[in-house]
C-alpha cells in the first residue's frame, strides 16, 4: 500500500470517529409521519404543529407533564380565587424570546387578546371562551378573570393553542416561529425537515440535546427502513403493524403508551335509523371490539366502553355493557323494525386505524345484516361532509382532545346527540372544582352515553414510539400532542 493512501485512509477514519463521537450524544433526528402545514400552534389545529413546536419552541404559562398533570411553565406560581373566577399568575423573570425580545406580562395579555379577538384564527378559541378579561398587574404578574368556573382552565392554558407569543413576531410564527422554549427554530426545508437548536439563553434547565431534526416520513415502510438504517433515531408514533420489526431488537426501544384519543364509530344520532336506540344497541352488539383492536392496532389499542381515556382516574370500565353477540344484534334489529337489516355508509378519514377498522367493522356488521358501504375521504372533504355538514351515517375517528366528554352535551355537535340530562350534568361538571363531585358527575355521563350507545366505542389509541436503544427521556404517554425534547438524552 502506498504510504500516501494509507495516510488518507487513516485521516478519513479519524474524521469519521470524531464525527460520530461529536454527533451521537447531543443531537437527535426524529421521524414524524406528517409535516405541519405551518409552525404556529395558535393558528392551526394540526397535531403535526405541536409535535415539532410544543414545549420545544413555544411554552405556555403552565405546561402539561408526561402524566397529564399541570406544572409551572412561564408562570412560576399562581393563585386561584375562592369562587374559581380569578387566576393570578406570577411570571418568571429574565425570560427572553428567541429573537432577543424580552418576555413579560404584556406578552401574556397580547397572546390572549389575540386568541380571543374577533378575527382570531385560533382553532380552539372555544376552550378559552370563559376568559372575560386578562389584566397586567405588573410586568411579572398577570390576572385572568373568568366568566364562569372552568375545571379544565389550567390544563387548557398548558395546551399548544395557548402558548405565549410576542407581538413583534406573532404574525410570522407560521414560517419562522419565535417562542421562549429551550429550542430555537433554525430552518425548515419544506417537504423534508425542520431543524431546531438549543437556545443558549434559555431561562430554565438546559436540555441535554443541542440539536434536533424532525424528518417528515409519511410512508411506514420508509420509516421502518430509515429507523433500521439509522437515518432517524426514533419516532414518537410508529405504525403498529410493523412494530414487530423492532420488538425484541436490543438496538431499539419500543415505547407503548397511552394517548387521549378515544377512537369511536361515530354515529349520526339525528338521522334514521340511527335515532333509534335499538338500532344503536344492535350495532353495539354486532361489534367485536377485540377483533377491531387486533386487526386495526395489532392489539395495541386499549378497549373502551365509553368516551373516556382509560388511564384517567374518572374512567369507568363499561366495555361489557354490550358484549359481541350477533344473534342479539339481529334480534334487536328485528325489534327495531329492520328484520332484514339495512344499508348505510361509513365515511373514513385518511388514517390507517380508521381505514382498517372500517373494513373489519363492515365485515362484522355484515354478519348481523347491516351492509356498510365504505367511503374513503381526504381530511378536507371529511371535515366538510361529516363534521361541518353532518352529511354522514357512520364514521370512525379518534377524538384526541383530553377530557372532551363535553361534546356529548352539545346537540349541534356532528354526531347529533341531544340529551337534556347529559347537558345538565355537564354544566354541573364544568362549574365545580370539587374532585369527588367531578368524578361522580363524569362517571354518570359516561354511563348514560354508554347505555344510549351514542357511538360505537372502540379503543383508546396507543402511542407506539420506536427509539434508538440508547435514547432515554422520551414521553411514553401522550397526554397532550407533542414530542417534548426537554428530557431526551443519549445514554451509554
Amino acid at each position, binding site marked *: 500500500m502506498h504510504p500516501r493512501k494509507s495516510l488518507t485512509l487513516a485521516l478519513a477514519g479519524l474524521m469519521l470517529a470524531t464525527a460520530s463521537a461529536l454527533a451521537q450524544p447531543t443531537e437527535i433526528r426524529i421521524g414524524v409521519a406528517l409535516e405541519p402545514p405551518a409552525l404556529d400552534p395558535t393558528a392551526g389545529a394540526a397535531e403535526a404543529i405541536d409535535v415539532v413546536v410544543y414545549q420545544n419552541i413555544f411554552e405556555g404559562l403552565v405546561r402539561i407533564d408526561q402524566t397529564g398533570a399541570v406544572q409551572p411553565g412561564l408562570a412560576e406560581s399562581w393563585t386561584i380565587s375562592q369562587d374559581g373566577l380569578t387566576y393570578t399568575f406570577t411570571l418568571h423573570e429574565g425570560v427572553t424570546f428567541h429573537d432577543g425580545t424580552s418576555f413579560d406580562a404584556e406578552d401574556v395579555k397580547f397572546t390572549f387578546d389575540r386568541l380571543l379577538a374577533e378575527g382570531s384564527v385560533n382553532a380552539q378559541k372555544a376552550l378559552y371562551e370563559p376568559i372575560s378579561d386578562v389584566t397586567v398587574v405588573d410586568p411579572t404578574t398577570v390576572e385572568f378573570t373568568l366568566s364562569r368556573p372552568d375545571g379544565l382552565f389550567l390544563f387548557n392554558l398548558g395546551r399548544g393553542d395557548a402558548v405565549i407569543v410576542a407581538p413583534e413576531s406573532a404574525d410570522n410564527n407560521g414560517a419562522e416561529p419565535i417562542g421562549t422554549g429551550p429550542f430555537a427554530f433554525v430552518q425548515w426545508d419544506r417537504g423534508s425537515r425542520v431543524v431546531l437548536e438549543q437556545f443558549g439563553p434559555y431561562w430554565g434547565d438546559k436540555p441535554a440535546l443541542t440539536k434536533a431534526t424532525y424528518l417528515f416520513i409519511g410512508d411506514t415502510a420508509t420509516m421502518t427502513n430509515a429507523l433500521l438504517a439509522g437515518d432517524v433515531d426514533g419516532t414518537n408514533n410508529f405504525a403498529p403493524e410493523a412494530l414487530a420489526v423492532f420488538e425484541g431488537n436490543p438496538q431499539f426501544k419500543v415505547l407503548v403508551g397511552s394517548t387521549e384519543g378515544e377512537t369511536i364509530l361515530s354515529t349520526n344520532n339525528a338521522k334514521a335509523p340511527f335515532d333509534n336506540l335499538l338500532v344503536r344497541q344492535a350495532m353495539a352488539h354486532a361489534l367485536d371490539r377485540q377483533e377491531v383492536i387486533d*386487526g386495526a392496532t395489532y392489539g395495541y389499542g386499549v378497549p373502551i366502553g365509553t368516551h373516556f381515556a382509560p388511564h384517567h382516574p374518572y374512567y369507568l370500565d363499561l366495555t361489557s355493557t354490550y358484549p359481541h353477540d350477533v344473534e342479539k344484534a339481529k334480534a334487536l334489529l328485528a325489534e327495531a323494525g329492520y328484520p332484514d337489516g339495512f344499508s348505510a355508509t361509513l365515511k373514513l378519514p385518511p388514517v390507517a386505524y380508521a381505514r382498517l377498522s372500517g373494513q373489519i367493522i363492515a365485515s362484522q356488521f355484515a354478519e348481523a345484516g347491516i351492509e356498510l358501504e365504505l367511503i*374513503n375521504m381526504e381530511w378536507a372533504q371529511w371535515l366538510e361532509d361529516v363534521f361541518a355538514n353532518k352529511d354522514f351515517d357512520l364514521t370512525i375517528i379518534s377524538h384526541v382532545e383530553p377530557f372532551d366528554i363535553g361534546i356529548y352535551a352539545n346537540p349541534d355537535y356532528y354526531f347529533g346527540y341531544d340529551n337534556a340530562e347529559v347537558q345538565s350534568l355537564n354544566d354541573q361538571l364544568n362549574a365545580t372544582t370539587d374532585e369527588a363531585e367531578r368524578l361522580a358527575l363524569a362517571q354518570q355521563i359516561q354511563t348514560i352515553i354508554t347505555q344510549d350507545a351514542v357511538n360505537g366505542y372502540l379503543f383508546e389509541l396507543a402511542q407506539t414510539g420506536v427509539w434508538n436503544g440508547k435514547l432515554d427521556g422520551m414521553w411514553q404517554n401522550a397526554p397532550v400532542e407533542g414530542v417534548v425534547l426537554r428530557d431526551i438524552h443519549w445514554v451509554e
Partner: protein
Amino acid sequence: MNWQALRHNPSLLIGLVATLAFALLGVVSIWWTPYPIEQVAIAQRFQGPSPAHWLGTDHLGRDMLSLIMSGTLTSFVVAALGVLIGVAVGVPMGLAAGAWGGAVEWLVLRISDLTFAFPAVIVAILITALAGPGETNAIIAIGVFNVPVFARVARGGALAVATQDYVAAARLAGHGNVSIAWRHLLPNIMSLLIVQGTIQLSLGILAEAGLSYIGLGTQPPATSLGLMLRDAQSLFLIHPWLSVVPGLTIVFIVIALNLAGDGLRDAMDPRLRHQGLAHGAG
C-alpha cells in the same frame, strides 16, 4: 395474423396465453373466489401458503389467492377502461385530424398537447380531491393519459392511409369524411390501434398500481394489485410474501402484455414497428 404467425412467434404465443390466463383468473373472480374477499378474519391473518389457503392470508386474514384473483380483475378492468376512454376519445380525434386536416388537425393537436401536459398523477390527485378516491379516478386519469396517445397514433396512421389511392377513390364515389374515416381509415389503422392498445394496457396496469399505492386508486373493501402492494408495503420486513405475490403478479402480467403486444406488432405488420411504443414514456 393467423395460426401460422402464432407458431412462428413463440413470444406472441407465450404473451397471449399468459395474458388470457391472467384475464381468466380475474374474470372467474366475478362469480367465484375460494373465499369472499370482504370477509375479515383477524384470527386467521398472516398464514403462509397451505392447502386451505394456497397463497396464505393477508393482514386481515383474507385469502391471498382470492385477493389476487379479484385484484387482477380490478387492475385489468381499470387499465382496460382507461384504454377504452383513450380509444373512444382519442381515435375519433385522430381520425378527424387525418380526414379533415387543416384547422381540425390543428385543434386536435392542441387538445392532445393540452391533455398530455397534465400528468396522470396530477389528474388523479385533482379528481380524488373532486370526487373522492376510487377506481373511477384511476380510470379517468389513465384515460386522460391515453387520449393524446391514441389521438396521435390514430392521426399518424390516418395520415398515412389518407394518401392511399383507395381513399381518393372513395371520395370520388361520393363518400364524405365521416364515411371515409369509418369505412377506410379506421379498419386500416386497426392493427396499429390493437398493438398500441396492448402496450397502453400494460402501462395502465402499472399506472393503476402506482395510483393505488399512493392511495388514489382502488379503495377497500375492493382490491387491486396496487392496493395489495400498498397494504403489504409496511409489512415487507415481517411478511415479505404479502408484497412479493402481488408484485410478481404485476410483473408477470405486464411482461405477458408486452410480449403479446410486440408479437402482435411483428405478426400483423412489420411496418408498424415504426410507430409502436412511441408513447411508451409514461
